């Protein structure tokens, strides 16, 4: 095949610059290297400019970007979002007395202070704040004279045992146990609705600022007696942004891993610094461009710099490999840099473009964060072409490398070729091309794949842990959430069906009856704890109007009674329907947000909608956290399948174009499939469901993972076509590319492994799975390619001609190199 001149020795050693033909090389090489200083200045300026831009990057964790925008459920949700107040945005602050119950003057005083502090917090919709201390929280009682009532916390409260007894009685008759007061009376809740925009200034609420204020002003009131639990969308977003900030600091760790790996490989401080510098420049450019284009950094796209850095480092190290050998043989540093450029530019570019295939596939997923991830990653890869393929050789032409390290490289290589040092590993691996080892490896892999497949049958869709799945189970937020779920009646997994009617239509008799029918169906679905809608409130008001007689707990056919019920309901609870009574949610509280639970609810709802929805009484899915998750699950499940299909299709095409042999394609792709199966098994074992965050893992894992096979097989096939036996061909291939394969695997894994420590659960999941994919694909390639080759590629015909597109640098006097052999 195309690798005809893959040995460094084939390029003449040029010790003195005067002996080098400055006009040699292609136009790009001449352009870049004959105006090196200009290139440096331009790059410096661009870097400064983009660094300045990058400082303006905004961090965000918008949930709307994590949901599939064009799914019909989400469209329904977005179209009615502003009308669904109850499902939106409120905080639940629970104040717990760890040393007693709520009937404790000291506790109530602390609660009052927290209540007042929250009341004054910017962004809080003061009119609707509810707690024991707000006068709007009332008890009512039907008496002979009609309704009687008052605030639960009486005006005459003075902390005396008498007023404590009064409070106890008022709580009992107000029916707030389970909602504002915990079932065990050890804590009480402050319900804090938020305003999306400040009505005075029109400025959008900054969740991150609010979350910080809460920690600073509210959580700080915690002591050994008073414990504070805070949950709610705004707090979650705040915590996610905090997590983002923390993950940024991991970049340092990733860089350190890279430094160690490169130094171990090159033993040269200068080259280590250069490679890291160029990769960091790539990251700066990427962030600068992303900021200039108006993107924000979210918990997904924050991962792109890590990937860009890792890919950059692996390319950089390959450059070093070449230049070390040139310099080690005595070639001048500028000439060595140009040689390296010649050898690797097109190869590297092709490899980078191939990586982009993985990202391109991600673009097909209809979830904004994934699209942003794909786009920003593509930008990063494009940037790498400039920084690591152009700029790095130019840098090297100025600095050169440590001569000592370079000479060491030559010595080591000689040793390896004789089968010593690292060479022992290559000898060992090449035995997999022999029958016994090949049979064992293939048998073992098949077994592993079967076991993996059986385990992977249990792969679940969606998030499996309770609480906020974005955060870790033992995060403070999820602990708070667990406490509140345990002690209060309603879960935080809400699945809402939206009912839309013409004006004043929500409390029409027919609307309410249909809503009640839906509620009755939903209640019977396993996993639904209860349902709440305007229906409950209207029935309650109606019964209340008739002296609390349970026989009047009904939807009266008399529209006046219903109108009155609706009015009364809206006084106490603005969330049940919107202002002009056109939109109301029917909310099912779920025991969890597992995919099966959501599937069941969706199925029953869809069936009901089919039978009962009319033009003037339109039932629509979906809203609420669980409703949105249901839609996301549906899209993710679909996307997971199609993406696998596309990624593998792309990889197969790429392999076929490169190898021109179906057998070789099978040899290259089978190890990837085994890894993909094992990755799914790993997800089952670790309790990770298929979700938005795991979609990119497969695409990146397979897309980048195929490179290993490309390096190894292209050399091996070339050697075989030159007439070598399989074992010899593979040994040559691994001697030549084994180090690169190992290095790429380690640097890529090093780039992503730090995510494992992220406080954001899905980032940690991505970190684990990507590290696994990168490493296991490497191992699979090194072991399975010789083994499978033994069975499929033992005899390779010598080609009649070399395909045109493998003639890289054709026409120049530089040696021709297969693009796949040296590139990433």
């Amino acid at each position: 095949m195309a690798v005809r001149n893959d040995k460094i020795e084939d390029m003449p050693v040029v010790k003195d610059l005067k002996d080098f033909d400055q006009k040699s090389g292609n136009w790009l090489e001449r352009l870049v290297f004959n105006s090196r200083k200009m290139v440096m200045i331009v790059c410096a300026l661009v870097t400064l400019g983009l660094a300045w831009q990058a400082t303006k990057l905004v961090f965000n964790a918008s949930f709307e970007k994590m949901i599939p925008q064009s799914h019909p459920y989400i469209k329904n949700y977005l179209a009615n979002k502003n009308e669904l107040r109850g499902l939106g945005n409120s905080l639940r602050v629970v104040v717990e007395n760890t040393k007693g119950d709520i009937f404790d003057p000291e506790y109530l005083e602390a609660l009052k202070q927290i209540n007042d502090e929250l009341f004054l917090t910017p962004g809080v919709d003061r009119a609707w704040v509810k707690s024991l201390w707000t006068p709007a929280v009332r008890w009512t009682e039907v008496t002979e004279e009609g309704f009687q009532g008052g605030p639960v916390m009486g005006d005459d409260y003075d902390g005396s045992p008498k007023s404590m007894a009064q409070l106890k009685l008022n709580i009992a008759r107000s029916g707030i146990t389970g909602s504002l007061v915990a079932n065990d009376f050890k804590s009480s809740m402050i319900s804090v609705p938020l305003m999306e925009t400040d009505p005075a200034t029109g400025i959008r609420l900054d969740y991150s600022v609010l979350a910080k204020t809460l920690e600073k002003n509210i959580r700080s009131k915690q002591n050994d007696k008073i414990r504070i639990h805070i949950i709610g969308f705004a707090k979650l977003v705040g915590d996610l942004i905090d997590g983002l900030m923390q993950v940024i600091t991991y970049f340092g760790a990733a860089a350190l891993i890279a430094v160690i790996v490169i130094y171990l490989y090159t033993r040269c401080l200068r080259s280590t610094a250069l490679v890291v510098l160029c990769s960091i420049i790539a990251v700066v450019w990427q962030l600068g461009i992303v900021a200039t284009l108006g993107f924000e950094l979210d918990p997904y796209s924050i991962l792109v710099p890590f990937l860009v850095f890792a890919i950059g480092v692996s390319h950089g190290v390959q450059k070093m490999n070449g230049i070390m050998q040139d310099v080690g043989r005595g070639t001048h540093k500028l000439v060595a840099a140009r040689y390296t450029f010649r050898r690797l530019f097109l190869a590297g570019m092709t490899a980078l473009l191939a990586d982009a295939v993985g990202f391109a596939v991600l673009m097909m997923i209809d979830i904004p964060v994934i699209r942003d991830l794909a786009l920003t990653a593509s930008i990063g890869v494009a940037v790498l072409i400039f920084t690591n393929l152009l700029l790095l050789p130019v840098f090297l032409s100025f600095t050169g490398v440590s001569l000592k390290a370079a000479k060491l490289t030559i010595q080591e290589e000689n040793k390896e070729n004789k089968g010593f040092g690292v060479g022992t590993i290559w000898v060992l691996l090449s035995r997999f091309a022999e029958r016994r080892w090949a049979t064992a490896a293939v048998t073992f892999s098949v077994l592993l794949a079967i076991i993996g497949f059986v385990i992977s049958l249990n792969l679940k869709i969606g998030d499996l842990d309770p609480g906020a799945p974005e955060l870790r189970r033992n995060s403070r937020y999820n602990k708070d959430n667990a406490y509140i779920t345990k002690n209060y009646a309603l879960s935080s997994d809400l699945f809402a069906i939206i009912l839309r009617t013409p004006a004043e239509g929500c409390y029409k008799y027919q609307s309410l009856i249909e809503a009640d029918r839906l509620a009755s169906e939903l209640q019977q679905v396993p996993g639904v704890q209860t349902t709440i809608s305007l229906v409950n409130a209207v029935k309650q008001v109606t019964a209340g109007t008739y002296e609390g007689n349970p026989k009047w707990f009904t939807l009266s056919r008399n529209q006046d009674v219903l109108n009155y019920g609706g009015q009364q309901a809206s006084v106490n609870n603005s969330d049940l329907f919107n202002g002009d009574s056109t939109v109301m949610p029917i909310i099912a509280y779920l025991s969890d947000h597992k995919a099966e639970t959501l599937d069941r609810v969706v199925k029953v709802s869809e069936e009901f909608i089919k039978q009962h929805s009319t033009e003037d009484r339109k039932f629509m899915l979906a809203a609420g956290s669980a409703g949105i998750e249901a839609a996301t699950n549906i899209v993710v499940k679909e996307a997971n399948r199609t993406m696998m299909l596309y990624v593998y299709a792309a990889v197969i095409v790429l392999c076929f174009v490169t190898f021109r042999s179906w057998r070789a394609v099978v040899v290259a792709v089978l190890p990837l499939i085994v890894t993909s199966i094992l990755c799914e098994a790993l997800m089952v074992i670790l309790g990770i469901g298929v979700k938005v965050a795991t979609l990119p893992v497969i695409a990146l894992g397979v897309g980048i993972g195929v490179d290993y096979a490309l390096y190894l097989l292209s050399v091996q096939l070339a050697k075989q076509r030159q007439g070598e036996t399989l074992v010899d061909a593979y040994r040559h291939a691994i001697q030549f590319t084994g180090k690169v394969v190992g290095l790429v695997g380690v640097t890529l894994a090093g780039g992503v492994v730090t995510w494992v420590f992220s406080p954001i659960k899905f980032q940690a999941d991505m970190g684990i799975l990507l590290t696994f994919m990168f490493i296991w694909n490497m191992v699979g390639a090194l072991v399975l390619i010789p083994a499978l080759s033994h069975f499929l590629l033992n005899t390779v015909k010598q080609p009649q001609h070399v395909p045109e597109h493998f003639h890289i640098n054709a026409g120049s006097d530089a040696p021709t190199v297969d693009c796949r052999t040296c590139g990433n």
Partner: protein
Amino acid sequence: MYHRIKQIALTSALLASVVAICLAAGEPGFIDVLDTPAKKSSLVAKAHFNGIAVAGKRLVSVGQRGYIVYSDDQGATWVQASVPVSADLTAVSFPTPGKGWAVGHDGVVLNSTDGGATWSRQLDGHSLAKIIADYYGAHPSAGPDAARLQDELQQYVDKGPDKPLLDVWFENETNGYIVGAFNLIFRTVDGGKSWEPLLDRTDNPKRFHLYGIRPVGTDLYLCGEQGLALKLDRQTGRFRALTVPYNGTLFGITGKPGALIAHGLRGNVFRSADAGTTWKKVETGIPVGIICGTVMDDGRIVLVNQAGNLLVSADNGESFSQAKVEQPFSATSVAPLGDQTVMLAGPRGMRKQTLKQ
């Protein structure tokens, strides 16, 4: 508060009724609860139930969305009956083990001849209104305030089936009464084949809702809103007003000869030893509404309030004491099971409670 509702309801009656009828009739894609059989529900035994009755050895309970359940094992398991409507049901009466009647909102009257397993419709709000119109059309001068009655009758017809029936009592398998909101009361003497309205034969000038109809001894009593208590005068056929010293709602009547008990809002209980002529308040100590009551086989009187407290009297209603219950269960209706246990039906389904002192 109900004044306001009633006022609104009456003053805007004509307009509202026209609108209501148009809507009910012409709403596309909407199937009325009167035309929708009760759906089978896996959670039926935990639904909102309003009435319970003993049918021989069987218990039958009726509740929301047309749910009727019966149990042949003292409430351990419940089977959902087949019911032709899904209106909310309020009360049930079984004069014999086989034959029973259930009533509910939208003027629904259902009849079973197989001990409550299957039900058929005898009346609904539409036919009820027609009966009223036909009857008073043919008997224009029945009763003392005939002129005013005539006005109101038109409204019963106009407003459609929007009035609930709230209680039912059958003396035997032919004779029975149904009562409901706005002074609705009917009698049958042929097992529900035909019904005679008695709206003009109650001393209820303000048309208060009738909440309960029960015999105590040989007399038949009615009770309702604003301290309304009536007793059937068998000679004139009229329900005559009794004077209970109370202006709150009376939810029900129970007791035995010489111990007539009326119970109502906020723990109010009144007792009459002389068949309703004079009444005395009995202190219960718990200010929670008492919706239902019954007499045990051993003669003890049991009242159940909305908080699920069981109030038991062993002295013919002179005093009540609270029975200990592990889990209080709010009840709308109660049926005695022998001496020591009662079966409760309420907003959270059915529950058997034991009377421990």
